[in-house]
Structures are given as structure tokens and as C-alpha cells.
């Protein structure tokens, strides 16, 4: 991730101003999260700081990096802003659900997954996340229903197929 994203940043940086403006959207969120995953915190923070304040995915990246650092309050602050900037866009609601699930607030997480699903009814990811939480709760029948819904939209998603298979085995 980091190698490819750094290459893209390098090439874009050599181009015109209009391309440089697009870097914070196309490359920086990936780069920041990549750095955070390998513990390059200063690099992650520098990239996040370079994302303008009106970029929707910038707040998602800030939230996801905050979750990696177990700073849930900072993550929620970023997601509040993402949702304010893009109330109709489902992606931040999924991130919010993931944050809450990581924090252990399962009821609130499920509500966020439902919000993401309402805004993006054909998006498999919130349905899988929803199914994952239900499976962990031992609600295998409900989990399988969510996985089956998700598979209609993303039939070749390997981790989804594996999650469904593992949950189906629990049921039998």
C-alpha cells in the first residue's frame, strides 16, 4: 500500500496544481492508514495534516487512524465531521459502526451499520459487518441472513464467503 501510494504521490507531485489538489482524496487517506498500520505515526500524522478540511474521506482516514491508536473519542469526532460533510454517503456510517464495535458498544454499532445500509442498500460491506457482529453474539440465523444479503452484491468476496461458511458450521 505504502509503496504504491508513495509512487502515486511522487508522480502527482510532479504534475500540475490541479492534480496536486486531487492527491488528498485519491492517495493521502490510503497512505496515512498504511503508515499508521506499520507504526510510522509521525508520517501518518503529517499526511493527515496535509488533507484539507473539506475532504470527506480525510475525516474517515483520521477516524480509522484514531481507532488503530485506540483513541475512540478522536475517531468519533472525525466521523461526526465526515457525516456532517456527507450525510447521504454511507461510508462514514460503516466506519462509525466499526469504531463502536471495536469499542465494545455493540448496540450502537448495529445502529450505524443499519444507517450505512439505509444509505447504501446495495453495498455489501455494512451487511457483512452487521453479520460479523451478529455471529459473534451467537445469533447465527440472523448473521447468515445478513451474509446472504451481502453475497448478492459481492459474490466473489472471499472473506465474506469464509465468514458465512464458518457461521453455517456453528449453526449445525
Amino acid at each position, binding site marked *: 500500500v505504502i509503496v504504491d501510494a508513495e509512487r502515486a504521490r511522487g508522480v502527482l507531485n510532479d504534475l500540475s496544481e490541479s492534480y496536486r489538489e486531487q492527491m488528498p482524496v485519491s492517495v493521502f487517506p490510503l497512505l496515512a492508514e498504511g503508515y499508521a498500520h506499520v507504526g510510522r505515526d509521525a508520517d501518518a500524522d503529517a499526511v493527515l495534516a496535509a488533507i484539507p478540511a473539506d475532504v470527506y474521506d480525510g475525516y474517515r482516514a483520521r477516524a480509522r487512524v484514531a481507532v488503530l491508536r485506540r483513541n475512540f473519542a478522536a475517531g468519533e469526532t472525525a466521523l461526526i465531521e465526515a457525516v456532517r460533510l456527507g450525510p447521504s454517503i454511507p461510508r462514514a456510517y460503516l466506519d462509525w459502526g466499526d469504531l463502536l464495535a471495536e469499542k465494545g458498544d455493540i448496540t450502537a454499532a448495529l445502529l450505524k451499520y443499519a444507517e450505512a445500509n439505509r444509505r447504501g442498500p446495495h453495498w455489501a460491506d455494512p451487511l457483512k459487518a452487521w453479520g460479523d457482529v451478529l455471529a459473534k453474539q451467537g445469533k447465527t440465523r440472523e448473521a447468515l441472513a445478513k451474509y446472504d444479503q451481502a453475497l448478492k452484491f459481492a459474490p*466473489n468476496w472471499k472473506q465474506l464467503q469464509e465468514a458465512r461458511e464458518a457461521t453455517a458450521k456453528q449453526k449445525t
Partner: protein
Amino acid sequence: MSDMNFALGHDELGLSEVRAVIGAEEDGSDSGLSRSGNTRIRARATLARDAALGDYPGMLASAATVLDVAEGDNSRLGAWRDRIRALICLHDLVAATNALELLPAAGAGAAAARIYALQAQLAAQGAIGRQ
């Protein structure tokens, strides 16, 4: 205009603009464009709406439509990159990798940057399930 809003990370504004384009088309408003021009604009708007709302099966179908009606190599390459993005978001990493390999090799300039960005997205999806 909506393309620029998405490119700048103003997704809500981009979404409202593409919805307006699709709505005007459905209402039969006269855009002053040729039939083929309308088809292209509608296909692009539908693709952008689907991407914003996580409707990646729809985005994949829209990318095929855009590819069918594209004029010129740049438009066709753009539609192919949209197809790859949709496949990445559908977590279909095998199909996305195969489609990425069919793009011309990364040389220099914006085309190269776009390929590297797609490779980074593909790697991120494989490594951390991110989109």
C-alpha cells in the same frame, strides 16, 4: 462539474449534482446535447452516483455502459479504471488484478499516477479490507 467535486472530496455536492443530471434526463429536459452526448453524460452520472452510494454492482454495469459509448482512448481508459475501482470495492481481487494488468504499463504523468493509485487501493483492499 460533479467529477471535479468527487475528485476534490466533496462527495455530497458531487452526489447532488449527478442526481440532478439523472433527474433532468428522466424528466426529458432538453439539454441541447445530441442523443449520444446525453447517453454518455447519463452513463457517467449513473456511475458516479453508484460509486458514491456503494452500489458497486451498479457501478460495474455503468462502467461497461460508459466503455461502450466512450469516444477516444482517454475516455475508454477512464472507463476501464472505473471498472477496476468497482471490482476492488466488490472485493473481487482476482478480477481487479486481471483488469489492472490489461491497462497500458505505467509510464509517466497522470496516467502513471492513476495506475499507482489503483495498485495502492488494490493492495489496501487485500491487506486491510479498506475502501
